[in-house]
């Protein structure tokens, strides 16, 4: 039978299964092949903290949502057009994300009494129970078909079942017209060396899933999402964590300083340390420290010794690093601290995203301890944000906190690869000479208030730094006047960074009724909401630079009747803005569910604020 082929602008697909079902791989492969096909896309891995929760339970469901489009896609999508559910638990936890028009593919073999009970279904009809019986439900015996597909192989039954995800991926590829070549290549690349025996079986199951979808009549139509009319050039897919690592390597190259990363593994930041550990060929040294404190302290030692130093962590780890952050502020050494935020407080929900560490980044230290804080706004922007964090740290002799989010760190998007020649040089203020009998480490540049950097090994520049208050010459001082001067100079040094960061840009009209304000990883959702709300006099101001704020911030704010600050916390940026710019009134949209915004939620808030 001939299926109809329908052209659509974009589509959202959600793969869900047990945490051992390989849903993250299935989703990323679908995303990657769509990227290679030329679509714009955004991904959202949504998985539990446990590596393998008990089989078939609600707690063990791992999901991966991917949004692909023929025009620009800014978010992973609020609701999905296709849900693939590998078992009843996956169906139950993910049914809420189905559009009214959604197609739902389930592995009918997994809907037996045991697994239905485990998922807490009370009747024999899970679709009716979830209220999704009107969707296009496609029950496919995926387990049986995978076993049949590999009945001639020599694999044991456990290994065969591991290939189920390839069957579903094949089906999804058929429905959305994805060529399989790229996935074939991936399978060959990944398994050829270590497990050559699984290459052909995986390819076969993928192809059989594709053929099965083509053969069954239950699938009414297939869809075509054409390539995006994107800017010409070479593209790649990149996750936020990878981009942070690469941005730091780029800053290392531009500054001519070796990169040192001292870190302790923590979800969802570990990927940065793993990525840097791979790239020793660019001179990067990584040290997996004994704890978070050693992570930052080894980095501070490396900074003292003249490296571009960084430490990577998430909220609870940042708490452990607080005292050492004070040491970096006091010694005025360059350091990049990356916080990939997760739902808190404390251990919180490690794999879920939030923006709740802003106050911690701004204020979480003893004493008067100001530090620049910048935020990345998309997975690929993590590259530029990390580069700029390093540039500010090195040129202004200060630790810098870069805020990322679980949503950005694990999320991915296609990225037009920039040439490194587009990036500016990084010029640290190396000490070349001094007046008088010895080098004075805390004498400052009169313009920027930045101190000079003398690196151990440099003859004649011997000096001491430390956590105790000192005078400009580097001698210990508890003199009250000196302390007041040094506190103010350290603060003013950070304030003056405002003159070397870009001005705040507005997307939309330069004045109007409502200015939507955001920062960090909500960018894609906010920009989509502003464009989708259909209102002419609404604009978006999204902040990459938080401390100091861009110099033109007040000027931008003054041009709108109302300001709506949207963030995934209880109002920390709004509170900070009230403190910095008290002349404006700030409305708030907040969400603290461990999940990104839905574009729909933001649109509703915009309309509500305009209507008032």
């Amino acid at each position, binding site marked *: 039978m001939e299926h109809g082929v329908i052209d659509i602008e974009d589509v959202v697909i959600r793969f869900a299964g047990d945490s051992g079902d390989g849903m993250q791989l299935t989703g990323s492969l679908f995303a990657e092949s769509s990227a290679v096909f030329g679509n714009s896309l955004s991904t959202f891995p949504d998985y539990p903290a446990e590596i393998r929760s008990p089989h078939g339970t609600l707690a063990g469901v791992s999901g991966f949502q991917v949004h692909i489009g023929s025009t620009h896609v800014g978010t992973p999508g609020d609701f999905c057009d296709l849900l693939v559910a590998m078992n009843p638990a996956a169906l139950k936890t993910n049914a809420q994300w189905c559009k009214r028009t959604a197609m739902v593919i389930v592995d009918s073999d997994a809907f037996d009494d045991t697994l239905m009970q485990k998922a807490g279904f009370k009747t024999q009809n899970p679709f009716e129970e979830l209220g999704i019986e009107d969707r296009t439900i496609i029950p496919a015996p995926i387990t049986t078909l995978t076993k049949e597909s590999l009945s001639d192989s020599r694999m044991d039954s456990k290994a065969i079942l591991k290939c189920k995800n390839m069957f579903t991926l094949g089906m999804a590829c058929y429905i959305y017209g994805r060529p399989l070549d790229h996935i074939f290549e991936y399978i060959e690349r990944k398994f050829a060396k270590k497990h050559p025996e699984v290459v052909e079986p995986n390819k076969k199951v993928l192809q059989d899933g594709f053929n099965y979808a083509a053969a069954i009549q239950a699938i009414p139509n297939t869809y075509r999402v054409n390539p995006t009319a994107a800017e010409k*050039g070479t593209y790649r897919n990149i996750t936020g964590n990878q981009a942070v690592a690469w941005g730091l390597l780029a800053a290392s190259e531009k500054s001519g300083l070796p990169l040192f990363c001292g870190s302790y593994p923590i979800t969802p930041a570990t990927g940065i340390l793993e990525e840097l550990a791979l790239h020793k060929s660019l001179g990067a*040294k990584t040290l997996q420290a004994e704890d978070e404190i050693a992570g930052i302290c080894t980095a*501070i030692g490396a900074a003292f*010794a003249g490296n571009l*130093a960084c430490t990577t962590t998430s909220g609870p780890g940042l708490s452990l690093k607080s005292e050492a952050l004070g040491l970096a502020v006091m010694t005025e050494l360059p350091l990049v601290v990356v916080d990939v935020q997760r739902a808190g407080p404390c251990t919180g929900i490690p794999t879920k995203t939030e923006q709740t560490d802003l106050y911690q980044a701004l204020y979480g230290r003893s004493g008067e301890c100001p530090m620049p804080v910048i935020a990345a706004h998309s997975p690929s922007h993590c590259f530029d944000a990390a580069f700029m964090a390093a540039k500010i740290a090195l040129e202004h002799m200060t630790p810098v906190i870069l805020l990322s989010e679980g949503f950005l760190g694990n999320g991915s998007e296609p990225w037009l690869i920039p040439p490194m020649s587009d990036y500016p040089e990084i010029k640290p203020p190396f000490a070349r000479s001094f007046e008088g009998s010895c080098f004075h480490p805390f004498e400052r540049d009169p313009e920027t208030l930045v101190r000079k950097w003398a690196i151990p090994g440099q003859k004649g520049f011997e000096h001491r730094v430390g956590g105790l208050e000192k005078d400009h010459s580097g001698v210990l001082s508890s003199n009250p006047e000196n302390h007041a001067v040094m506190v103010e100079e350290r603060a003013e040094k950070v304030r003056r960074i405002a003159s070397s960061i870009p001005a705040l840009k507005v997307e939309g009209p330069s004045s109007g009724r409502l200015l939507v304000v955001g920062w960090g990883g909500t960018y894609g959702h906010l920009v989509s909401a502003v464009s989708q709300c259909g209102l002419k006099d609404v604009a978006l101001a999204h902040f990459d630079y938080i401390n100091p704020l861009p110099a033109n911030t007040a000027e931008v704010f003054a041009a709108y009747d109302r300001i709506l600050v949207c963030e995934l916390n209880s109002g920390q940026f709004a509170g900070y803005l009230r403190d910095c710019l008290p002349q404006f009134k700030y409305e708030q949209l907040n969400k603290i569910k461990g999940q990104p915004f839905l574009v729909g939620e933001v649109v509703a808030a915009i309309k509500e604020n305009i209507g008032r």
Partner: protein
Amino acid sequence: MATLTAKDFKSDQLARWCPGCGDHAVLAALQRALPKVSQALGYEKERYVVVSGIGCSSRLPYYMDTYGFHSIHGRATAISTGIKVANPWLTVWQACGDGDALAIGGNHFIHAIRRNIDINIILFNNRIYGLTKGQYSPTSKFGAITKTSPYGTVEHPFEPGSLVLGAKGTFFARSLDVELALNEEIMTAAALHDGCSVMEMLTNCVIFNDGAHKDIADPAVRADRTIILRHGEKMIFGANKDKGLIYDGKKIRVVHIGEGGFTEEDILVHDAHTDNIGIHMALADMKGPDYPVALGVIRDVRDVTYDDGVRDQVKDVMLKSNIHTVDDLLHSGTTWEIK
């Protein structure tokens, strides 16, 4: 290269330790040892970095005219590690107290030893918190009466030697603050040792724990209650050099030379370089009244160092990889063209 002297390592800052504090003597020994180290290894002064944590002894970097880093409580070892990994060419010395290294900084301390990073740690052990004015430390003796243990502590102390050797340390030495010449000798040996060197300096705190080590440090009894171990030399001690250590097949024993049929021939020769960590543990653990306390370099063995390992791996991967610039990196793996 100009010959360096102790004076070259003295900063213009007056050492602000209490008169009679053992730290003065350790500082003096270090300032005398470094010129010798420099002579032996051809090091210039700018190559030295002195790192410390928090506590009385951690003020030491301010009194050394070298690069110095007075960091935060317990973290000196982590800072030193970062410095050494970032630039293995530098020679890193660290001053830390018993609280700094073994309480708040215990984790960093054992991991630096485990990694065998090439740093030289002087552990000032006065068995008390001095800078906070007299609280017990992790090396205070069981029952010690201090401000936070007015009825005596009810916890056992760490023996730094056991801890270092338990973590498979490659260099451990012990001495008394007053043994200036021995301390110079130990510090020089530590500098020559490639790997993590721990020197436990038993120091006196005249204010809060006066006589911290007097049971062995008192000149009247020192020769009989301590033994100075030197590689290749017989383990003989005592004011009259008439006592020695033997191994009786089960354990080390003290014998009187010329008594019970024991002659100098029977006395053990110290082998600091043997891989046998058991004998070093036994020596480090010796204490009165049955044994003399071992001073000198107890263990000094070769093993791979962390800083060399990191550096060599970077070099190795650089040679093998075809990614040499960030542009190479950005174009590695799967990419696609939009024309």
